[in-house]
């Protein structure tokens, strides 16, 4: 299905290779001798009325990229931020992969956005110098204008736009040094806030096109089931219902002139399901199949020394994580209009090009016949990397011969989605006589999310694990393995993906090691990070010094070891998506249950583009992770998902959310991930706090079931 794995995409993005650079300096994008706006590349347009439009080729789902990406370009352009507007790019061939995932939006656009801005600035300066008949070196760009030092002549970018369009496009413009940034690194207000608080922001579910109808689909409640037959007699009696028809093998669509009509129609529809082979599937059987696979042969993700030769005190433990649902606040939806072999689509999608291709394939048309607009998204968390909504909308539009918006109810989302996979982890360690770790083995047993999405394993390894299973401790003998165990459950990438699971297991187990060694959990970790070392895990080169840095930052800000009476602390750290994160969770216990009182989270993600947006990601990621740790669980019984809505699967509410203090390391290193890295340390830090309070080790998520 997807031509590019997430891993491959991050690697490309991080390198910001020549392919991207060539791809974005498009001759066709330059304005020809006046008329149109100055558009030196596919990322930027400057019109003569001084309006600067930055094209945003990633999807906004709350993570702030509609602000952060233009900031990067505006920095190099020396633009006046007040004149910046954005344009959301739909599925395009001009920008390389537009997939919005893997916490890679900033890291993958960092170089192209900077170069786009810098190239345009040089062209504007050259145009001004030409206009005034002075040396380029005597002219300077500042706050959206070019100024001549000698004469103090000044022309705005808008005034220069026409002439700038006639300048040669510089191939490799020099970029600013971090010390000279005036926009990057500042708390610029988000572009999208005013419309959101006025209720004027248009999410996917708000799209309205002429003559549009609304569709709901009945899907088999049993995983993998299909439609045997259906009776639409009663459904068609509902006022406003205009079409009922089978869509693919496993759904029946009801189309009406209102959402409510479609809901009533679907309720009246009678479908006989061919429930298929999974009617006996339960959560217990899913975990049982993981256990059965756990002793099988695994593939090595990381190896150092020889774990078989390590001698000393042995400890071991097994950890489990359940299926979880993304449950973004905006339920699934997509609007499509199929006509004359062409399809126009308005999709809340994290991967416009892949969605476009999935739709084209489903319709049996060439991808060029599908125009896909990207809408604002009410959360994503990886759920909108899937194309079910988009494909359904296109097929229903074709079937009912008219424009249609497909809407999923919350129950549809909870019960018919792909989920974070359930995973099993077997860990063992050897401690020497001084309580030092001499050996650590972590075996992850899980299904391959990529493989289920048609993305090949790489030497037997799910590509995501290369970013999400790192071991960043100087243990002389270490082994990290992956055992693939497939189940019939549809699975998906969910915020931090495997890292949530691997970090819960490994960072809880490191705490077990510290306890067995009789050492303080922070001191024990710092001991394993004491030596400045580079640890290569596939393509990522981790530095123990940076991990030590975030761990100490979190500990210092939290007042590690100085919790008030009745409070208990737990600590954890983890690296994923090339960033380093640590967290201290402080709890109290009441009636045998933990209450999270305070969380301190620390992140090193290189150069920070917008500290206010980063803080949102750190705090929001922590709240998301607390919900996952405390009670997020999708249960399968008789092949069906048991949870239906926000009562059975309940995100945290205001009364349950503690103070979350977010800190980051000031750095001029290349930016790395921010949206996902704060997530993984939270569950183990919470479990470790529970251990500190009760001396009971939690080895199964959710922690409070």
């Amino acid at each position, binding site marked *: 299905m997807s031509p590019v794995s997430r891993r491959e995409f991050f690697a490309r993005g991080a390198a910001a290779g020549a392919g991207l650079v060539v791809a974005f300096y498009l001759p066709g994008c330059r304005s020809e001798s006046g008329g149109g706006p100055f558009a030196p590349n596919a990322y930027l347009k400057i019109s003569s009325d001084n309006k600067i439009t930055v094209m945003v080729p990633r999807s906004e789902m709350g993570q702030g990229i509609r602000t952060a990406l233009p900031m990067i370009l505006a920095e190099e352009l020396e633009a006046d931020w007040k004149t910046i507007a954005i344009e959301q790019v739909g599925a395009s061939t001009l920008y390389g992969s537009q997939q919005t995932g893997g916490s890679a939006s900033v890291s993958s656009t960092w170089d192209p956005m900077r170069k786009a801005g810098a190239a345009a600035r040089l062209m504007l300066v050259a145009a001004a110098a030409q206009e005034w008949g002075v040396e380029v070196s005597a002219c300077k760009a500042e706050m959206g204008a070019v100024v001549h030092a000698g004469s103090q002549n000044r022309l705005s970018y808008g005034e220069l736009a026409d002439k700038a369009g006639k300048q040669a496009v510089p191939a490799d413009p020099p970029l600013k040094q971090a010390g000279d940034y005036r926009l990057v690194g500042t708390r610029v207000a*988000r572009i*999208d806030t005013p419309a959101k608080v*006025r*209720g004027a922001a248009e999410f996917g579910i708000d799209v309205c096109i002429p003559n549009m109808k609304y569709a709901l689909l009945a899907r088999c409640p049993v995983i993998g089931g299909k439609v045997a037959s259906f009776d639409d007699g009663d459904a068609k009696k509902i006022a406003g219902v205009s079409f009922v028809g089978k869509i693919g093998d496993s759904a029946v669509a009801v189309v009406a002139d*209102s959402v409510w009509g479609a809901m009533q129609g679907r309720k009246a529809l009678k479908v006989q399901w061919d429930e298929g082979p999974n009617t006996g599937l339960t959560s217990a059987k899913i975990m049982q199949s993981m256990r059965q696979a756990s002793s099988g042969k695994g593939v090595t993700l990381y190896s150092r020394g020889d774990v078989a030769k390590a001698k000393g005190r042995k400890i071991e433990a097994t950890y489990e994580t359940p299926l979880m649902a993304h449950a973004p606040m905006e339920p699934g939806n997509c609007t499509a209009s199929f006509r004359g072999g062409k399809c126009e689509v308005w999709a809340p999608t994290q991967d416009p090009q892949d969605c476009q291709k999935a739709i084209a394939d489903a319709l049996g048309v060439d991808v060029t016949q599908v125009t896909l607009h990207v809408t604002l998204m*009410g959360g994503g968390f990886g759920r909108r990397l899937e194309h079910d909504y988009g494909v359904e909308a296109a097929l229903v539009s074709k079937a009912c011969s008219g424009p249609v918006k497909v809407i999923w109810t919350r129950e549809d989302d909870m019960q018919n989605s792909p989920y974070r996979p359930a995973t099993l982890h077997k860990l063992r360690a050897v401690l020497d006589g001084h309580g030092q770790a001499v050996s650590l083995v972590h075996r992850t047993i899980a299904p391959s999310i990529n493989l289920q999405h048609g993305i090949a394993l790489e030497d037997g390894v799910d590509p995501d694990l290369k970013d999400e299973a790192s071991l960043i401790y100087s243990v002389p003998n270490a082994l990290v393995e992956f055992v693939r165990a497939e189940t019939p459950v549809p699975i998906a990438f969910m915020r931090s993906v495997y890292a949530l699971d691997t970090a819960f297991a490994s960072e809880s187990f490191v705490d077990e090691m510290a306890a067995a060694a009789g050492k303080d959990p922070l001191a024990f970790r710092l001991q394993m990070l004491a030596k400045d070392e580079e640890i290569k895990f596939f393509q990522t080169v981790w530095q123990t010094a940076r991990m030590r840095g975030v761990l100490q930052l979190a500990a210092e*800000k939290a007042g590690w070891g100085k919790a008030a009476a009745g409070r208990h602390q737990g600590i954890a750290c983890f690296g994923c998506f090339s960033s380093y994160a640590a967290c201290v969770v402080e709890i109290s216990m009441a009636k045998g249950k933990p209450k999270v009182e305070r969380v301190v989270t620390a992140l090193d993600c290189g150069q920070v583009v917008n500290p206010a947006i980063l803080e949102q990601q750190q705090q929001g990621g*922590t709240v998301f992770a607390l919900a996952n740790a405390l009670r997020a669980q999708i249960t399968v019984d008789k092949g069906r998902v048991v949870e239906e809505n*926000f009562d059975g699967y309940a995100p945290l509410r205001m009364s349950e959310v503690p103070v979350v203090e977010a800190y980051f390391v000031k750095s001029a290193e290349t930016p790395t991930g921010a949206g996902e890295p704060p997530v993984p340390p939270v569950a183990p830090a919470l479990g470790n706090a529970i251990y500190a309070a009760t001396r009971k080790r939690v080895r199964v998520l959710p922690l409070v079931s």
Partner: protein
Amino acid sequence: MAEFALRVNGGDRKVDVAGNTPLLWVLRDTLAMTGTKFGCGAGLCGACTVLVDGAARRSCQTLVSQAVGKQITTIEGLGAASGSGGLHPLQQAWIDEEVPQCGYCQVGQIMQAAALLAKKPHPSDDEITNAMDGNLCRCGTYHRIRKAIHRAAGQSSDVAGGER
């Protein structure tokens, strides 16, 4: 289908819909006022919150027939209803505190908070929590929602954090 006369944001609106239609879908589909959001359809998340005679109501659980004869205020009319003509003080506070992330739940949060402030102009933390606990936010913006309510009420609150 039947005709219902509604009073929405100070204006008279006639709609011809099935009597069991929730107000949510009348607002969104019939009146094209999409600021009010669908989140759960079961009164569990608060995304669809509007004011009915000044009280916060889940529009997904309020039938159109129950809304007849009452003053309905949605986000589209909240600023005007506050008498400022522009933004309601809560909307301004939401901007000043940069509350939204994805923003999907925020309209419901603002409507819920508006009902709170109308009753309690200077709410305590506990009063805020009690009033807002039915409104889910999956992005985890709760602490900024709290700060924004305090700000709109002319109070201050703060959380530590930032650059090392």
